[in-house]
């Protein structure tokens, strides 16, 4: 019954979106529609986990956005994910915002991907690799941490780029949650400071410092601090070199029991091998710094991943990828766990022209 209800709800979403995009496309309202498809095939070579050995629609996303009136803009992002063999739609983002009310400022109110970090601010089909690095999976989720609340960004009046962002959201849920959650003791709140510098030879680099915190209903306080860097060199439309990296530390102080501190980072260098082809290598590292055994002795542990990734773009609307995911999880007194997965991906953009974000 539950799945039938969810399926019918999905049909309703599709019908509404289809109707909306047809009805409002040319009426002068400025409403834009776009669709993104993320198709992923995954085949586990070591047979450690063959449950996902198939080619699947990982995500189908509908985006509607445009001006609401002379002051506000709106966005609705609905995406379907495969849950238990059924593609079920859910709202990813639904917010109103404005960059016209307060000088040098923009804000949004509603549900959105939290404006923190690098990957968390981009939809997964726009990532330069196929699957989430371990730290992102652990600290934010398979795609992103999303919540409902408000976010404000201010561009400092300085002779260089410095933008400050702060947000507060409900915090009833965080991460992969399948219910309405519980009122937290301290809602989710976060901040980000971003700067940018031009680099020689048509390059540029954006760096940020990030902070997020929340105390759950059970009294468990979580704090995330991290930094991210994205550097690009583009010449005549070709992304010659990309360097993207994030490093995060999370501290969980439960009301009962000991604190846990984890650290994770990834580095992704990618270079162009031809005008439409890029090769990158995702290097991933994750460790629980405070892991101890039951008698209190520290336990060394680390998860490493190496994912060589080949990307080919037929145009700016279609991206094809092949990747080979080697991961090793090491923990003292436990046999190393090696996993190798072959992955392929096709992402497609239909409709309104996608934004060339930096």
């Amino acid at each position, binding site marked *: 019954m539950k799945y039938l209800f969810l399926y019918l709800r999905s049909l309703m979403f599709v019908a509404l979106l289809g109707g909306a995009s047809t009805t409002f496309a040319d009426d002068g309202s400025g409403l834009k529609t776009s669709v993104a498809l993320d198709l992923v095939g995954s085949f586990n070579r070591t047979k450690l986990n063959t449950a996902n050995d198939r080619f699947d629609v990982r995500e189908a996303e509908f985006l509607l956005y445009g001006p609401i009136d002379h002051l506000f803009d709106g966005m609705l992002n609905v995406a379907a994910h495969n849950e238990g063999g059924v593609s079920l739609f859910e709202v990813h983002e639904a917010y109103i915002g404005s*960059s*016209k009310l307060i000088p040098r*400022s923009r804000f949004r109110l509603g549900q959105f991907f939290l404006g923190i970090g690098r990957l968390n601010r981009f939809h997964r089909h726009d990532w330069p690799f196929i699957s989430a690095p371990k730290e992102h999976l652990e600290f934010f989720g398979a795609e992103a941490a999303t919540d409902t609340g408000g976010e404000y960004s201010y561009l400092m009046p300085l002779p260089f780029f410095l933008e400050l962002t702060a947000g507060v959201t409900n915090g009833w849920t965080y991460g992969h949650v399948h219910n309405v959650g519980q009122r937290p003791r301290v809602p989710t709140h976060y901040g980000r400071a971003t700067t*940018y510098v031009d680099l020689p030879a048509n390059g540029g680099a954006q760096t940020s410092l990030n902070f997020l915190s929340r105390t759950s209903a059970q009294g468990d306080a979580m704090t995330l601090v991290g930094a991210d860097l994205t550097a690009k060199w583009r010449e005549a439309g070709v992304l010659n070199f990309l360097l993207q990296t994030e490093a995060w530390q999370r501290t969980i102080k439960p009301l009962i029991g000991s604190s846990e501190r984890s650290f994770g980072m990834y580095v992704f260098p990618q270079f162009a091998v031809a005008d439409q082809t890029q090769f990158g290598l995702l290097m991933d590292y994750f460790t629980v710094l405070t892991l101890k055994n039951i008698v209190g002795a520290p336990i060394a542990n680390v998860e490493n991943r190496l994912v060589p990734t080949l990307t080919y773009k037929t145009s700016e609307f279609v991206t094809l990828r092949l990747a080979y995911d080697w991961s090793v999880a090491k923990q003292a007194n436990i046999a190393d766990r090696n996993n190798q997965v072959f992955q392929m991906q096709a992402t497609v953009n239909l409709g309104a022209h996608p934004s060339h974000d930096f």
Partner: protein
Amino acid sequence: MTSNTKITGFIPYFIALLITSLSATAFAKVKVVTTIPDLAWVAAEVGGDYVESKALLRGNENPHFVDAVPEFTRLTADADVVCMAGLDLEVGYMPAVLTRSGNAKIQPGGPGYCEAGKFVQVLEKPTAAVDRSMGDVHPAGNPHFFLSPKALADGAKEIAAALTRVDPAHTSDYKKGLTNFAAKMDALDKEVVKLLNPLKSAQDKAGGKPLLIEYHREFSYFLNEYGLTSFGSIEEKPGVPPSAGRLGEIAAASKAAGIRVALAADYYPKKTLERFSELSGIKVVVVPTMIQPSGSYKTYAELQKHIANSLVSAATDRSGKI
């Protein structure tokens, strides 16, 4: 008596300070930020001393594939006017830049929002429905109008209109600047016509058959301005790099049609152009399509003349004939 003297002694200073601050306000320049350097130059020409203009691009980028770089956001945050070519040329990055700037004046519909293509007589506007199966088609028409002096003069009208909206006190100055600019473009046009005369004459002698081909249809306005026709494009579909098969096919067709020169922007893959030249025996002329303030062609006149001279030179054989 002494205190009165002290107070009255300061009055001239106050008056001087007041006059200075009023002057500063009165003469605060209009900050214009444009996408391409050519439009920044136009804004400076039309606005004169009342305008300070800056371009986001350097002039050597492929204007179809530019990222919404944070520095663009910072520059537009303080702008009084932001001017784009429009016709969807900047659709990939400027909407994001404008939104993130937090500058209400320059948002679409605001007084400082300017699309120079507004008053241009647009070429190659599709008459039937278009979609992406046809390549990266510009549904509003060809946006590369800035390669024609007369079309650029038409584009300047919207720049002047934007300046007038944000700085009505200098309306007459901007109107005068616009008139002068149009006259300058007229004069430049005549100069370039002279430079291209040998190529035009050769084309006329060939019964109007085209003597050149483009890599991508960026030069439509330039060619139209000077009465030159194009055999088409090396790309089979706009924005789609030609396959090996397409290269062979178009090289053969161009050779058979007596094409003398291929014209390409300097941001296209050199290897593809070299291969076309090898297959067809046709010389390829690679030129910038925008002013490059830090590069070799700092002025619009230099750029126009360079394109013209390069075409004529490439089309001229060893005996000096076209």
